[in-house]
């Protein structure tokens, strides 16, 4: 007898729905759900930082649910483009720093106009090579690195652009293969399928301790003991293209894990987000979790990031030219 049982089902549904609790509403400047877009595949550094920040951001925004959403395809560029629509602050995004360089290469996103909410870290970049190549110094790589396979994240990512720029300006002759996002590059290095890469400092220690790789050169500042004896890029005597590239990469390392909002975001929403971001990054719980997971922190609030980003995006004709070459546009 379908009808009575259907009626019973309907009655049950009605009863259930009436019993539901109401949800509290607060933070008038912001919508009650914010998507925290993570511009990378799950599992990598951006993902870990994104989820950590999202979780604690929620704590500092009353009545707002912050939901991490991975949109890593094409290095997150389409997601960043879509972000422009979220003028109510319903979407914010952590994205690969490489997009800043990509913008220099003629991406045309108009990144200068985006509003920065803050940055979470400064992370040095480490050029490393597989132990079984027998290479143990940057000079060694310059001498016999030709043909080695270095893998990076997708074609527009910072790792790809920076590795390719190093390859180009130092004349290394490496084969740079993109498409190894998330933790894939580390897995491929562990398995001995590839010979090297440019890796964030927080991912280096496990690889070095496993005896899989030798770190050759550090871009930016690092206090990691594993990297204590590794030469710094700024201490090399450089000139020409190599100097331009080493400077640019070192500057970019300061802009680690930036969170951004739409260019035309509502000012009240932006202020609320910036305050919550700063409070979240100062949160002792977040700091403890970051420390436990080996994620270095070096936060800066939105206005300070504005200044840094402006410097990086400032004109440099030769750098732009080189980026266009490596992106093959």
């Amino acid at each position, binding site marked *: 007898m379908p009808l009575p049982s259907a009626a019973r089902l*309907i009655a049950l*549904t009605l009863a259930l729905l009436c019993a539901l609790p109401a949800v509290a509403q607060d933070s008038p400047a912001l919508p009650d759900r914010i998507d925290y877009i993570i511009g990378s595949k799950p599992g990598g550094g951006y993902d870990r930082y994104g989820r950590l920040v999202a979780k604690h951001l929620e704590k500092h925004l009353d009545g707002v649910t912050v939901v991490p959403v991975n949109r890593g395809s094409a290095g997150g560029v389409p997601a960043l483009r879509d972000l422009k629509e979220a003028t109510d602050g319903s979407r914010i995004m952590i994205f690969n720093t490489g997009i800043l360089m990509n913008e220099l290469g003629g991406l045309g996103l108009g990144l200068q106009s985006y509003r920065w909410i803050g940055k979470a870290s400064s992370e040095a970049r480490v050029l490393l090579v597989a132990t079984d190549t027998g290479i143990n110094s940057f000079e060694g790589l310059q001498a016999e690195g030709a043909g080695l396979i270095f893998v990076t994240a997708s074609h527009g990512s910072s790792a790809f652009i920076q590795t390719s720029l190093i390859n180009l300006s130092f004349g290394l002759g490496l084969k740079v293969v993109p498409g190894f996002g998330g933790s894939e590059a580390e897995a491929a290095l562990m398995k001995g399928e590839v010979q090297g890469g440019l890796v964030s400092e927080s991912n280096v220690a496990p690889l070095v301790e496993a005896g899989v790789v030798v770190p050759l050169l550090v871009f930016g500042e690092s206090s990691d003991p594993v990297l204590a004896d590794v030469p710094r890029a700024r201490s090399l005597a450089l000139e020409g293209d190599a100097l331009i590239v080493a400077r640019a990469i070192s500057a970019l390392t300061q802009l680690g894990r930036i969170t951004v909002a739409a260019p035309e975001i509502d000012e009240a929403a932006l202020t609320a987000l910036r305050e919550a971001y700063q409070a979240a990054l100062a949160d002792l719980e977040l700091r403890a979790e970051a420390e436990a997971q080996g994620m270095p922190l070096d936060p800066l609030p939105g206005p300070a990031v504005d200044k840094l980003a402006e410097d990086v995006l400032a004109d440099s004709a030769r750098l732009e030219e080189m980026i266009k070459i490596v992106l093959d546009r």
Partner: protein
Amino acid sequence: MRVDLALAATFALVFAAALIELPAYRWQVALAPGLAAGIGLALAGLVGLAAIRRRHAAPEARWGTDDLRTLLWFALALGAVLLLGFALGGGLYVFAHSLAAHPRLARLPVAALCGAVVPLVVTQLFGRMLQIELYRGLLLGG
């Protein structure tokens, strides 16, 4: 076999269109779709030839007003949801469908009850409990 032929032709057309677009891409981007579309085009050609050879359609395979009506009902559901959203459009659609399609339910109160379940589920179960906001419809402001 006219529908078979039309299906094969549609597939062939899509494969061919894809192949035309490919030369603009770098090899890493073009290789896999090129293989799929190339093989697909050859196969669609085979299927189309076979369909031309066997010309007699089985009587039950003919398309009639029945097909048209059922497709129209689906189109109506789609239209209602796109214009008025899941809650209102969906509710109205279920109401209309119950009235028109089911003699036992073709009484206003029963049909109205069937329709009223929809907005309740959309707002309470999805909206409140699961915090998922379903589409509100083009006319009601997305």
